[in-house]
């Protein structure tokens, strides 16, 4: 039977979960051996991708990307993160902050496959459309 990347990732997660780092290191070595044996090493990128997704899901972790026109101060950043955690009912947040001047103002938050566009650019665009109508 052919084992696909997702199944490998699931198996890896189940073995590694709740292990300490030493043990996990050994488990990973064995895992790589299996991949070599099955001639599946080329799938490693996909396996890593799926593994990250499974890990995030099981541990209640979200990845977010916050874009603003100017660097955010720590207070605003904390406010936004708390808001996201409350909204998504997750426990941990890993966020990346980007600065882009051409959104003029406000913030854009991206997480999973969702986007919350609160930028001034978008609002002006919407206003333009509303007036044209």
């Amino acid at each position, binding site marked *: 039977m052919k084992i696909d990347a997702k199944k490998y990732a699931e198996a890896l997660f189940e073995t590694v979960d709740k292990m300490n780092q030493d043990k996990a290191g050994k488990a990973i070595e064995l895992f790589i051996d299996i991949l070599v044996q099955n001639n599946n090493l080329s799938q490693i990128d996909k396996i890593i991708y799926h593994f990250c997704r499974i890990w995030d899901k099981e541990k209640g972790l979200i990845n977010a990307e916050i874009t603003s026109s100017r660097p955010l101060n720590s207070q605003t950043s904390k406010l936004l993160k708390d808001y996201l955690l409350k909204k998504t009912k997750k426990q941990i947040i890993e966020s990346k902050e980007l600065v882009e001047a051409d959104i003029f103002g406000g913030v854009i938050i991206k997480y999973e*496959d969702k986007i919350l566009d609160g930028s001034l650019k978008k609002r002006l665009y919407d206003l333009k459309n509303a007036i044209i109508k």
Partner: protein
Amino acid sequence: MNTTKDFIVEQIKQQISGYKAKIKEQTIGEVLEIGDGIARVSGLSDTMMSEMVEFDTAEGSVLGVVLNLEEDSAGIVILGECQGIKEGDKVMALKKILEIPVGEEMIGRVVNPLGIALDGKGEIKSNKFYPIEKIAPGVITRESVKQPVQTGIKAIDAMVPIGRGQRELIIGDRQIGKTAIAIDTIINQKGQNMKCIYVAIGQKESKVASIVAKLEEHGAMAYTSVVLAGASDPASLAYIAPYAGSAIAEYFLDKGEDVLIVYDDLSKHAVAYREISLLLRRPPGREAYPGDVFYLHSRLLERSCKLNSDFGGGSITALPIIETQAGDVSAYIPTNVISITDGQIYLEPDLFNQGNRPAINAGLSVSRVGSAAQIKAMKKVAGKMRLEAAQYRELAAFAQFGSDLDDETLAKLERGKRLLEIFKQDQYVPISVANQVLIFYAVTSGLLDNIPVDKIDKFEEELFRYATNSGQDILDEIVKKGELNKDLTKKVEVLINDFKSTLDYLIKEEIEENK
């Protein structure tokens, strides 16, 4: 000047202050692979089936519709140009099922299946939207078909009458006059309280342009709307075109109006759907069509209906067209559509080549609604005509072998010849019901028996002219009463005989010359 400027500024200020920006959470996805008008997209975790999505590309946005939902990707067909879309482009879910603008604005226009004008007469501004896919009206809302659709084509109105709310298939080989029948029917709907929609699926744009020009010439665009998915448009547009036409029709249906919709043609629609299905990797079945081609057409044609008065009393009459290959009606799509519709008009190449146009085969064409969709006068004069025409063809084939024929057979043959002659009709000259009743009365009552067969054509034309000049009241009475009582029958007979008396010298002269 100042006041108007102030006024405008004030208006703008008001509008802006009245505008409330709302931040909505949006679902996005990313293009994984793209090709042949199909995109596979990751993300989009909470999209619905047949939801609209928007591809954000460097060259503006393109619409798409979700057709496949898989474990961690979605199969999307692109409704438009797919050249600009790249791997990794953002895809935004629009949170609404595929819909198009509908309304009175559509009348007289040529639009694409997304409701965008193609005729250069400006944008279509409508604030009413109807979903493209809609479940057909249920049993309790319906009623049996009883009002006629006058096609203006003698052979159809006499032998295979079509009723409002019926689905009558037009089937035949290429270049045999299928579209001509549909267009003549649309032209004849002038003043009959009918909205018409012509859906061109995979047709040549030049053909559609000439059809629109013809409709305009006859003043038919005043109540007609054309939905066009041309031969150069992607298969996705051809696939949604008939549903879009149906959505436009349903708007008028909901207003209680009668609509006639022509799907030209459904074989190309099936081919477009086959293309999409195969690209989406759905398993192929017979003739490589996917498993749900039957449902593809049945759900479309089931949307034509006659509603009862509690539900507005509107109707949608459908004239789907199917093109056969070398007269093969037992191919997959033709048999499917024949079984869905309430009858078919079968056009035959042999008849066409003999010059019997429209080339309607009387034996194979049927209307399952039958005489319920004829006015009483027509029922009376044309009741047995289909049978007679069908019998004549058999008899004529048989009579070729024998020279000794009894008088009865000879009479039948002579009658049959005249009948076929009457069924011949030029394109774009629909004939009113009253005139049809007149000529059919003439042939069934034997009044035409002494007119030479090659003169029938001219006789008919002149009879109609004579009737409009000196018998308009009788024609009006036929339309008004809808039936031929004794009194009216007499009047009709007198009218025809009067006309014949003006002709007789011509005929006599010729007979003498022949002597």
